[in-house]
C-alpha cells in the first residue's frame, strides 16, 4: 500500500511516523513547506504537484488546512485513491456531505481522522459507559485546554475562514466524544472570548450541550495557555456511577529539571513548562503509551483498507460532530440558544 502525505506540518509529521508503524509505505510528500525534510526522513519522494502525487499512491493522507479538504478529497476520489483526511472534515455541512458522496460514488474509502476516539483513556471510558457501569448519563464535563497554535509562517489555525477557529478545529474532538457517549444533541449554547472581543490574544470557549436522552454536557476549550501546555480531562456522571479522569493527575512521568543553559538564556524569567523546546505548530495531548493514538488510528485505517472492515468512526460521525461545532459557532455569533 503506497501512501502520500499532503502537508508536512504538525499533523503531517505525526501521520508519517504513524504510517511507518503500519505495513504501508510512505512514498511521497507534497507540501508547500518542509516537504523535503519530511520526505527525506522516510526515503519518500518530494512531489511538486498534487496530481503527480495522486498518480504515485493508493492512499492520500490530507494534513492540510481544513478549507482545502473538500477539493483535494474530490480530486483524490476522482483519481480512484482512498482518502485519509484530518478533522474537521470540512467547514460546512454541505461540503462535508459532498466529500462523502464523492468518495462513495468513486468507490474509495474516506477516513476522517477523529483521533480522540483512539486515545485509550477515552476508549476505556466509552466502553465502561456503554457497558452500563454509570447507569444513565447525567452530566458530562469535557476539557481541552491548550495553547494557541504557533506557526512562524502562515498560521492558518488563527484564520477562521480556513480552520473554523478553535471551536470547530479543536473542540470538534469533544463534541464527537460527547455524541459518542450520549447520542444525539438537541440544543447548543456557547460563549467565547473571541466572540465577545474579536481582538482577544487567545481564545476560550464554554459550550453547553443538551442531548435527546436528557443528559447534558459542558465542553471547555482553551487556546490560552502558555506554549507547551495541553491539559485534557473528563468527568462523566451517571445515575449509578462516575468516571473522573484528568491529564493533570495521571502523568506517569514528570520532570523537575533545572533549565538547560540554552533554555535559561532563551527565557531567563520563565519556567520550563512555559518555555518548552518545541512548541511550534498545534499542540498535541500526548502521554507515554505503548502505542501513540495516531499510530493506533492509522493502523486501523491500514487494516480497514486491506480487509474492507468498517472504520470505527464513520465520516457521518465526523459530520455530526461538525454540526454541533457549527451550532456552537452560530450560538457564539447570535448569543442565542441553537436548537438542532
Amino acid at each position, binding site marked *: 500500500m503506497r501512501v502520500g502525505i499532503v502537508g508536512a506540518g504538525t499533523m503531517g509529521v505525526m501521520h508519517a511516523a504513524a504510517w511507518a508503524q503500519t505495513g504501508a509505505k510512505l512514498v511521497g510528500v507534497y507540501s508547500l513547506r518542509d516537504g523535503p525534510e519530511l520526505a527525506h526522513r522516510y526515503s519518500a519522494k518530494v512531489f511538486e504537484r498534487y496530481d503527480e502525487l495522486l498518480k504515485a499512491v493508493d492512499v492520500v493522507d490530507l494534513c492540510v488546512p481544513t478549507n482545502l479538504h473538500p477539493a483535494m478529497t474530490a480530486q483524490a476520489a476522482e483519481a480512484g485513491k482512498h482518502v485519509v483526511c484530518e478533522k474537521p472534515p470540512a467547514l460546512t455541512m454541505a461540503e462535508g456531505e459532498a466529500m462523502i458522496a464523492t468518495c462513495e460514488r468513486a468507490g474509495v474509502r474516506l477516513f476522517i481522522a477523529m483521533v480522540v476516539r483512539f486515545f485509550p483513556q477515552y476508549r476505556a471510558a466509552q466502553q465502561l459507559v456503554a457497558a452500563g457501569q454509570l447507569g444513565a448519563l*447525567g452530566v458530562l464535563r469535557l*476539557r481541552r485546554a491548550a495553547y494557541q497554535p504557533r506557526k512562524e509562517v502562515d498560521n492558518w489555525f488563527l484564520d477562521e475562514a480556513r480552520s473554523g477557529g478553535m471551536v470547530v478545529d479543536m473542540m470538534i474532538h469533544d463534541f464527537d466524544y460527547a455524541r459518542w457517549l450520549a447520542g444525539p444533541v438537541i440544543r447548543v449554547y456557547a460563549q*467565547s*472570548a473571541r466572540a465577545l472581543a474579536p481582538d*482577544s490574544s487567545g481564545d476560550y470557549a*464554554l459550550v453547553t450541550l443538551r442531548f435527546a436522552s436528557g*443528559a447534558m454536557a459542558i465542553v*471547555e476549550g482553551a487556546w490560552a495557555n502558555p506554549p507547551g501546555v495541553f491539559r485534557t480531562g473528563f468527568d462523566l456522571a*451517571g445515575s449509578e456511577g462516575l468516571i473522573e479522569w484528568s491529564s493533570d493527575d495521571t502523568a506517569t512521568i514528570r520532570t523537575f529539571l533545572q533549565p538547560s543553559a540554552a533554555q535559561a538564556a532563551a527565557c531567563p524569567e520563565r519556567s520550563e513548562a512555559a518555555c518548552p523546546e518545541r512548541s511550534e505548530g498545534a499542540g498535541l495531548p500526548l502521554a507515554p503509551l505503548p502505542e501513540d493514538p495516531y499510530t493506533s488510528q492509522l493502523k486501523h485505517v491500514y487494516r480497514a483498507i486491506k480487509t474492507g472492515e468498517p472504520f470505527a468512526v464513520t465520516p457521518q460521525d465526523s459530520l455530526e460532530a461538525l454540526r454541533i461545532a457549527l451550532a456552537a459557532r452560530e450560538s457564539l455569533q447570535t448569543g*442565542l440558544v441553537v436548537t438542532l
Partner: protein
Amino acid sequence: MKVGILSLAHVHADGYLALLPELPDVRLIGFSDDDTERAQATAARTDIPWLGSDAALLAERPDAVIICSENAKHRAAVEQAAAAGAHVLCEKPIATTLADALSMREACERHGVSFMTAFPMRFDASLQALKAMLKQGELGRVYGINGINHAECPSRHRAWFVDPELAGGGAVMDHIVHLADLYRWLLASEITAVYAEVGNPFLPESVAVDTACLASVTLSNGVFASIDASWSRPSSYPRWGQLKLEVVGERGAVAIDAFAQHLTLYSPHASRQPSWVNWGGNPNRAMLAAFIASVRLGAPPPVTWQDGYQALRVALACYASQAGGAVVPLGGLTAVG
C-alpha cells in the same frame, strides 16, 4: 457575646455547633429545633443545650443568631430574630422567593439589626489568593471561568433538600449560589444574563426536584462563566463533593481546587471507602469570626443581604431559563465593591 443557632435543619448547623465554642468571647447559648429526636441526639452528643422553639431561644436575648432552618422557613426565622434584636447570619440560599428575601431585608432594617449571607467560600485562602491575583491583573484580561460545585444528593443527610416546598428546588437552589456569589466577588461585577440546562438525570425515580444544572452566565465586565451545580457525585464518592474553578485569561489559566488539602484514608472505620479527610483550612471558621467581629464592631457585615439576594436571583433565573429555553437577562443591577 451571646450567640444561638436557629434550627439544625441545614447540614451546616453541625459544623457551626463545633466551631462557635472555639471563637473567643462567644458564648453559644444553644440551639432551637423543631425535630425532637434530632435535637435531643445533638444535645447529648455536643453538650450544647436544646432550647426548644425559635421563640424560646430568642427569649434568651442572643446578640446574634445563625439561621439554619429549611430555605422556605428563613423568612419567618429572620423576622422573629430581627424583632428580638438579634443580628443575623443566614444560610444560603437566603430564601426561596424574591418576595421573602425582600421582606427579610425590610425586617432587619426596621429593627436595626445586620444581615449577613453565609457564603463561606469568600473566606477560603485559595479563593482569597485568586481574588488578589485578579485584582493585580496577573491574568491580564479575564476571558472566562469554568466552575464546579458538585455534591452528592444531600437527601441522605436531610430529606428536606429534595422537598420542593421547603427547599424551593433541588441542586439549583442548593449550589448555584456559591459560585454565582464567588464570580460576582472575584470580578467585582454583576451577573447580567443566565442560561441554564436543568434536569433530574441522577435520581429520576426517587426525588421530585432537579439534580443537575449547567448554568452559563455573563457578567457586567464582559466575562462569561459556567456553573456546574449538579448533585452528580455518587454516595460512594470519597467526600460530599467539591468546589473547583478555573479562570482563563490572556496570560493563561489559574486552577482552584478549594478542598484539595485532604488525606486519602482507607479504613473500614471511615464513613466512606476511601475517605478524603480534610487537613486544610475551614472557611466556615473564618466566616463565623468575620460575622462575630462585624456584630461586635457594629460594622456592616462582610457579605451582605444584597449578595445573598443577587445570588438567589441567579438561581431563580436558571429555572426561568430552562422553562423558556432561552437566555434570561438580569437587568437593573448595580455592581458590588
